[in-house]
């Protein structure tokens, strides 16, 4: 097991290097000169050239890449070209805001998905199943930004229950105020996360109920409830544990659109602002972080799978 994890970790390194290089090159290929975000139109060509040299932007692309890589390896993500602030410090301030929004929303979505998915799957083809499945299809087809606008119109404007922007009212720092700001983006995110998970739970329930062991349990006098509680739900829910690993990158990039719409001061607006001005140290830092979380998340998912599924465990120990 430890060997397996070690081997997987070693595979992560070249993958991350490759991802960072690709991202770096793609940004370089964009038809945009990053120096424009620092200069003003009335600066002379010489001034612009001096600025370019000072930031090292006149060096060949690969030289720039390795310089950046060297710094990252020393833990230095660099500075925003636009604001001159330290990216590490900025991210340290923004990521917690994203996390307190994404984690409750994701957990709510997961709980809803498990409950409704099992319920629908157990009643496959009946009215309740068609209703839940239809609702999740609509949820899946609804873009979060559009749903966010509906929510803002209804609860923020028409009913005027919740503030429509930000995380705190200026000058107020209490929990109640935070929660009032929290409700709408949380609702939107939950609705964004839930349908896909729900469909997974439902279809896996339906297929488990067709398994032979269910028929065998019926032949041995198990009631519907017993079969469901002791056998089917376990088979359905064990693989879901692995979703926790796959969901890891959501902690950073899970709410970019929603945060931006609601002016939630998380990673989302920070990332979009950086993208608009092609502030590439920031873009690189966030993409690298996100890619790392995707890879680490998948590793965690694989390890969890080995831990929860007895069949996989044996195959690993044999190999």
């Amino acid at each position: 097991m430890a060997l397996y994890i070690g081997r997987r970790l070693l595979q992560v390194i070249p993958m991350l290097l490759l991802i960072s290089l690709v991202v770096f090159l793609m940004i370089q290929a964009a038809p945009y000169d990053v120096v424009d975000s620092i200069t003003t139109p009335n600066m002379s060509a010489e001034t612009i050239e001096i600025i370019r040299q000072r930031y090292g932007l006149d060096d060949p692309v690969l030289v720039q890449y390795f310089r950046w890589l060297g710094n990252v390896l020393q833990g230095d993500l660099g500075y925003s070209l636009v604001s001159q602030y330290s990216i590490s410090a900025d991210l340290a301030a923004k990521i917690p805001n994203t996390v307190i929004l994404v984690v409750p929303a994701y957990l709510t979505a997961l709980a809803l998905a498990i409950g409704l998915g099992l319920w629908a799957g157990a009643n496959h083809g009946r009215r309740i199943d068609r209703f839940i499945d239809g609702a999740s299809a609509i949820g899946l087809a609804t873009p979060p930004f559009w749903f966010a606008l509906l929510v803002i119109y209804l609860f923020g404007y028409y009913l005027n229950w919740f503030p429509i922007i930000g995380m705190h009212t200026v000058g107020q720092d209490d929990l109640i105020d935070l929660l009032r700001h929290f409700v709408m983006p949380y609702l939107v995110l939950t609705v964004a996360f839930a349908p896909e998970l729900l469909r997974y739970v439902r279809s896996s329930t339906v297929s488990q109920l067709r398994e032979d062991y269910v028929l065998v349990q019926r032949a041995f006098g198990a009631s519907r409830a017993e079969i469901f509680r002791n056998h089917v739900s376990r088979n359905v829910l064990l693989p879901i544990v692995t979703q926790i690993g796959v969901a890891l990158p959501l902690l950073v990039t899970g709410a970019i659109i929603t945060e931006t719409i609601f002016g939630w001061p998380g990673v989302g607006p920070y990332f979009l602002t950086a993208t608009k001005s092609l502030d590439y140290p920031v873009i690189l830092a966030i993409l690298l972080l996100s890619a790392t979380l995707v890879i680490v998340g998948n590793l965690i998912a694989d390890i969890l799978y080995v831990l929860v599924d007895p069949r996989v465990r044996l195959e690993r120990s044999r190999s």
Partner: protein
Amino acid sequence: MTDVLRVAGLTVDIPNRDGVAVRVLHDVDFTVGHGEIVGVVGESGSGKTMLMRSVVDILPETAIRTWTACEVDGVDRTTRSRGDRLPVSMIFQDPMTSLNPVRRIGYHLVEVIRRFQGVTGGRARQLGIEALDQVGIDDPARRFRQYPHELSGGMRQRVMIAMALLAKPSLLIADEPTTALDVTVQAQILDLITDLRREARLAVALVTHDLGVVAGTCDRVAVMCRGRVVEVGTTDEIFYDPQHPYTRALLAAAPGTEAAGGSLTVSGGVASEWVDASAVRVQHSTTHASLVPAEVAP
């Protein structure tokens, strides 16, 4: 002495995709006496499995079942409430998929012990391990803790038989219990079943399409074709003096018999001819065969 199982006038309809009811069992009579092994033979789709599933109440949800009698140990079971435990156990064709892959062997056994014997905890565990021992599993305490995938097919079928025994049945229904197993393992499982018949005073209904299995194991045989029992007799009667043309065709189609090389045609015309030409020992097929057009047969 009453029979262990007596089913009479059993008819089952299952709606197909278009909602048209397909009759999979036509007025079937079937009995199993005490300590008897009754073979049920017939080609795929002849209704063997549906007959057995009717008895243990695991027909598909949409199936419509009617019967004039269903007695187990002389007790009427045509109307049965939920949770009413039947002293009938059933084991299935594919032991590889019969057990829940994420539950240990012991879990399966203890569940049955709790349900049928009301015993839990360490005592149930002990009974489970004893049952594994009884069906010839080596190192039962270790097997008890293992997952199904850690056992071979033959071993898993033994586990199924152990589960079946723990339900304290008077009748064991074995639905092609050896079809998915290696030939050598097949023989072991059949030996185990015949041994249990003696030791546990068990009656057995053995569904199979392997006439060799029937010849070696069964006391009596019921031959099924297109949802009807077309002939019932002792194993000797069926093998040496088959009355129904379908039985003869079935025997002829089996490799190693005298008429080997004959092929069993399944075209509708031929098969319904067989059904109409009812045999001496068949009780109901003459009167009802003509009522059901050949198209509704599976």
